[in-house]
């Protein structure tokens, strides 16, 4: 194997990086809009931020970081030509993704049962929009991971050619990264 190939940069397909950049731009603009709006309504934001379930969000943060770790292990496994391990690690990552979705859905359930919606106030508008948009990205990331996992199980990757695994991993890390910004910004920062 060409040693340059092994550590080629960026990992995965170049096209996914263009996509990742575009996605980060979307979230970046959303975060900036949140920040500027908050600056004008600090009290409102602080009041309603207190109604969010920080513990649930912390658990979710751990879930996503763990799943990212599992994805790293999956990439490492395929680099040592172990398709089976790669598949198993991806399953583990998917499980953590599912945990995230369940916890987040329970949070939504709680808010909706209190009659909160997008028109309740500006804070909830941002909270619901941002987290739901991220939620959809977790779903998309999981769809990608499922596709990669199925191909890995079928022996579609090997130590020499595993661009697909790295591509899926890169996207998943992006989903994780966005949450790592979102969590302190929306749930914690005062």
């Amino acid at each position, binding site marked *: 194997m060409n040693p340059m190939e092994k550590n080629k940069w960026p990992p995965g397909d170049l*096209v996914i990086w263009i996509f990742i950049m575009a996605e980060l731009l*979307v979230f970046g603009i959303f975060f900036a809009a949140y920040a500027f709006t908050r600056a004008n309504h600090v009290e409102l934001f602080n009041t309603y931020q207190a109604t969010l379930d920080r513990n649930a969000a912390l658990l979710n943060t751990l879930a996503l970081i763990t799943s990212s770790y599992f994805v790293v292990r999956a990439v490492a496994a395929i680099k040592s030509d172990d398709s089976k391990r790669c598949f198993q690690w991806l399953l583990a990552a998917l499980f953590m993704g599912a945990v995230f979705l369940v916890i987040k859905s329970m949070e939504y359930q709680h808010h909706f049962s209190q009659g909160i919606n997008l028109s309740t106030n500006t804070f909830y508008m941002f909270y619901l*929009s941002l987290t739901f948009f991220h939620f959809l990205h977790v779903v998309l990331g999981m769809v990608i991971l499922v596709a990669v996992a199925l191909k890995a199980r079928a022996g579609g990757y090997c130590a020499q050619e595993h661009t697909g695994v790295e591509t899926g991993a890169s996207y998943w890390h992006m989903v994780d990264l966005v949450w790592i910004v979102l969590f302190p910004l929306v749930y914690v920062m005062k």
Partner: protein
Amino acid sequence: MKYESQKVAKLYFIAAIGLFVGQILFGLIMGMQYVVGDFLFPEIPFNVARMVHTNLLIVWLLFGFMGASYYLVPEEAETELFAPWLAYLMFWIFLAAGAATVLAYLLVPYATLAEVTMNHLLPTMGREFLEQPTITKIGIVIVVLAFLFNIGMTILKGRKTVVSLVLLMGLTGLAVFFLFAFYNPTNLVMDKYYWWWVVHLWVEGVWELILGAILAFILIKTTGVDREVIEKWLYIIIAMTLITGIVGMGHHYYWIGTPEFWQWWGSIFSALEPIPFFMMTVYAFNMVNRRRRNHPNKVAVLWALGTAVMAFLGAGVWGFLHTLAPVNYYTHGTQITAAHGHMAFYGAYVMIVLGMISYSMPLMRGRELCNSVRSQSLEMWSFWLMTISMVFITLFLTAAGILQVYLQRFSDNPMDFMVVQDKIALFYWLREITGLIFLIGLIVYIASFFIGQDEPEATVEPLK
């Protein structure tokens, strides 16, 4: 041309170009009425000219998309079209229905047309762009369903490529969202809300998939770049289109009585709608630069690159200009919108259809690869004449729009609508003159189908 049934496309393209001429003529009539109010009155009132101008555009683009699909799908699926006879039959039904509708617009007062076509049974008329009598709308649904069936069956029985699947997705969306034309609630907010499901989700949603697929096809054919590379780009372009475009619909929901969060959703997501167009530009040039062959049909490549650039400018940049809610508060429904509409439709949809015609028509008329040098250079002239005049039409309308916004809505002493219209008349004149140049470009375009046809095909140096 690999399959005999691809030839169906020829009829569709001829009809498309014919209706295109009609669209431009009515555009010129209307442009004149902007400055000479009673021009051709009472024969062709302004509202009728506008209806004909916009409806013809939509119908000829649909003819173009259908023609493009009938050409593209058999070649991608590597099989003959499922039912060529059905395609011919639908062509004549669609053309007859379209022509009858336009003639009815011109010959009968609109209210009478509504009465005669029994609009009261299922009222769908009287809404911008969806003015067609209900019976015409039903006809459109039948034609589109038969078309989808034909295309779908062809894909099912043959090779399934990403290009044809993306195309099919776009065409299915086109059919599905048109159904909202039949939903006409009495609540005006709800009416407008769902009206955009046809209008916006067409042009800023599923039509972009059709555009992406056709562009990918032309690039695969003319550059010889690996299909896999082009397909990857196509994937992320359509993903980005849908992510930004669907929620981006919010930029139409700012001031129609919908909840306030739409101002945020609409602003943020629609502000990102230029991204897929920008990707498309980068990708089109990238593919041409990485080409594995020099294709002698240079003018088809020119249209492909042209559409990528002009779609980005017209849809992307000019759309962004007035998409943010605080800006749109002032610019809503002014000439800025007209400027955007003109360049976006031309750049994204007119040019891609003309590009597909440019690629496929020589093959359907018996050429091996392309037209003669003479026909091609004439067509290039038409490309530049139409494109440059469209740029100027857009610039003049933008200038008119900025002045309009300032005088009518922004200055300390806002003026009446009609007073402002008088003040910006100069730009309307300039637009009208530029429109004439566009018409000349269109005439040159049509001439390129007849001139140089007896000369040998153009050739190119092979790529070193």
